[in-house]
């Protein structure tokens, strides 16, 4: 079965999604402090990694990577509420791009499955 990544249209679709998703995140005062890196461009590229992963595109991230990659954010206070905000932005980004509801649900469940790793517990 093909992945959501392929059904969305692969790399090009993810590129389109990154800007929309990242704009939503930066506009959300509840979570944007986690993303305001010195280098906006590098931060945006990392979010492409995120979108590729949750849509089942080519990636080599492991649960351990997710744990390590967000540890510094957990120290900054990252918790379930922030996680829910990100899921919400992910959902509305995909909806804006016209992705079918069942595909959105698949993506959200993949993201949801990483919750304990991302929150390091």
């Amino acid at each position, binding site marked *: 079965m093909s992945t959501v990544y392929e059904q969305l249209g692969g790399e090009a679709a993810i590129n389109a999604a990154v800007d929309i998703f990242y704009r939503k995140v930066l506009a959300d005062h509840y979570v944007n402090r986690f993303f305001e890196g010195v280098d*906006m461009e590098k931060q945006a590229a990392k979010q492409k990694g995120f979108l590729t992963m949750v849509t089942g595109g080519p990636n080599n991230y492991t649960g351990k990577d997710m744990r390590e990659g967000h540890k510094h954010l957990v120290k900054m206070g990252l918790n379930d509420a922030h996680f829910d905000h990100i899921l919400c932005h992910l959902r509305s980004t995909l909806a804006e791009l016209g992705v079918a509801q069942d595909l959105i649900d698949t993506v959200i469940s993949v993201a949801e499955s990483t919750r304990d790793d991302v929150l390091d517990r």
Partner: protein
Amino acid sequence: MPTIHFEGNDFFCAEDESILECMTRHGVMIPSSCQSGACQTCMIRAIEGTPTPESQQGLKDTMKAQNYFLACVCKPTEDMTIGLSVISPRQTVKLLSRDVLNESVIRLRLEEPEDFSYKAGQFINLVRPYDELTRSYSLASIPGDGFLELQVKRVADGQMSNWLFDGLTVGEEIQFFGPAGDCFYIPGAAEQPLLLVGTGTGLAPLYGILRHVLAEGHTGPVHLFHASLAAAGLYLEEELRRLAEQHEQLRYIPCVLHGDVPEGGQQGHIADLPASMLGSLSGYRAFLCGDPPIVNALRQKCFMGGVAMQDIHADPFVFSPTQEN
């Protein structure tokens, strides 16, 4: 089996192996993360050889133009020399002229070395011959001018800038490395609206980019915002007004934070002015140069205002607060 040259060593790349895998297997650790071409952590530069098309997918045009690529998805088909940057030869040139542009900015024209090639908007690293003090300065000239132009602002207690103002004499030799930088215009999309915003000598690279844009026959609207604290800090006003008269697609907007506002200008914080004047910035290509905090604020405003990340080119004039001599 292609060979990868890196920092004087040769590495053999096995069949179906990416450059990242090859280097890692030989103990050369290139930072990486997703290992599938998304996160761009492993971006490196091809100094010789052509990166595969897949390995440049999703990169900015300006990075592609300089042969940057993603090591994790590049399975080379030919020998390549890779590096983090290009080592450029040191050039020695004479100072041709020095003019005053306003009370704190001068224009320097340097000889252009014969085999020198650059893109308007890039910068060079000037080296003071007697003590090797090095600082970056943007090129305000365009290829074909026959000289290299710099616009330098005097910084209080600044070692290099004060020497360029008062020490270096016309006819004397100075050295430089470069060019470098990825804030430049790539011809194409001639109808795309362009936004050029600079503070202080952030005008230097923009002046080069602007002349390149006009020479390429760009037809879309071009908005040039030049900002300073007060009108005395602006420069090249007459020249820019004249260019705007000659090119109907060009709009020149001098901006000040306080004091008298020049004709056709604006007062306010430069980070807010472009979006408040132009409304949605969706579809624009932006070039942002000068003071680092302002450039970063502009970068964010442009992105939130609708400019695609791929279309934002920025050149913050970073300096370190603690310089050893």
